[in-house]
């Protein structure tokens, strides 16, 4: 079975400060990893994804994430946040292509609260 753990339910940060949102996964096979963002009263928007290749993945809005297989982590980072980054961020995992299942499993989410 695979699961996703987001260690922080809420991360408060001041505007223009750096931020890291943590995500760890558990899986016995190779995985694809995703970060989604959900703004208030809206749907889920894909920020970035890791499928293969370079372990440093760059996404939209200045976010990036690093896949670390030995630590089974996929932490999301941004060097300088804006007020508009305030949203819920979800880490998600899917078993690698070729498996019998194609389910996207989400973590519990981290609320990024950017303060002026």
């Amino acid at each position, binding site marked *: 079975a695979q699961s996703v753990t987001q260690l922080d339910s809420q991360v408060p940060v001041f505007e223009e400060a750096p931020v890291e949102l943590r995500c760890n996964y558990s899986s016995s096979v190779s995985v694809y990893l995703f970060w989604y963002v959900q703004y208030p009263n809206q*749907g889920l*928007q*894909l920020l970035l994804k890791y499928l293969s290749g370079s372990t440093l993945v760059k996404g939209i809005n200045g976010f990036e994430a690093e896949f670390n297989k030995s630590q089974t982590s996929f932490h999301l980072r941004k060097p300088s946040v804006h007020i508009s980054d305030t949203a819920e961020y*979800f880490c998600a995992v899917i078993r690698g292509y070729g498996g019998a299942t*194609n389910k*996207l499993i*989400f973590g*519990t989410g981290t609320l990024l609260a950017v303060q002026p």
Partner: protein
Amino acid sequence: DAGVIQSPRHEVTEMGQEVTLRCKPISGHDYLFWYRQTMMQGLELLVYFNNKAVMDDSGMPKDRFSAKMPNASFSTLKIQPSEPRDSAVYFCASSSESGQGSNYGYTFGSGTRLTVV
């Protein structure tokens, strides 16, 4: 492409009534997923289809929920009878198994906010 389209955006219904949520996936996508989002449980996968066939409905309460995909461009999630605990935001998503590489991923609809009173 218009993306994944869900209707209605909001639904308020009385307990015991039937509710039908609708989803149109992205053309060419062969996977369709129904998720439910609540404060308590987060995002839960209810059911998903591959080429219109149910692949896994283990997350769906089968006594009152039913999901159908009569053709490649339309799916419904029906709740009968509805209960207050069904109040949630229901998301539909689609993806393509054949879309490997940089195109691989899920696209979500805007969701249906269901309130059962």
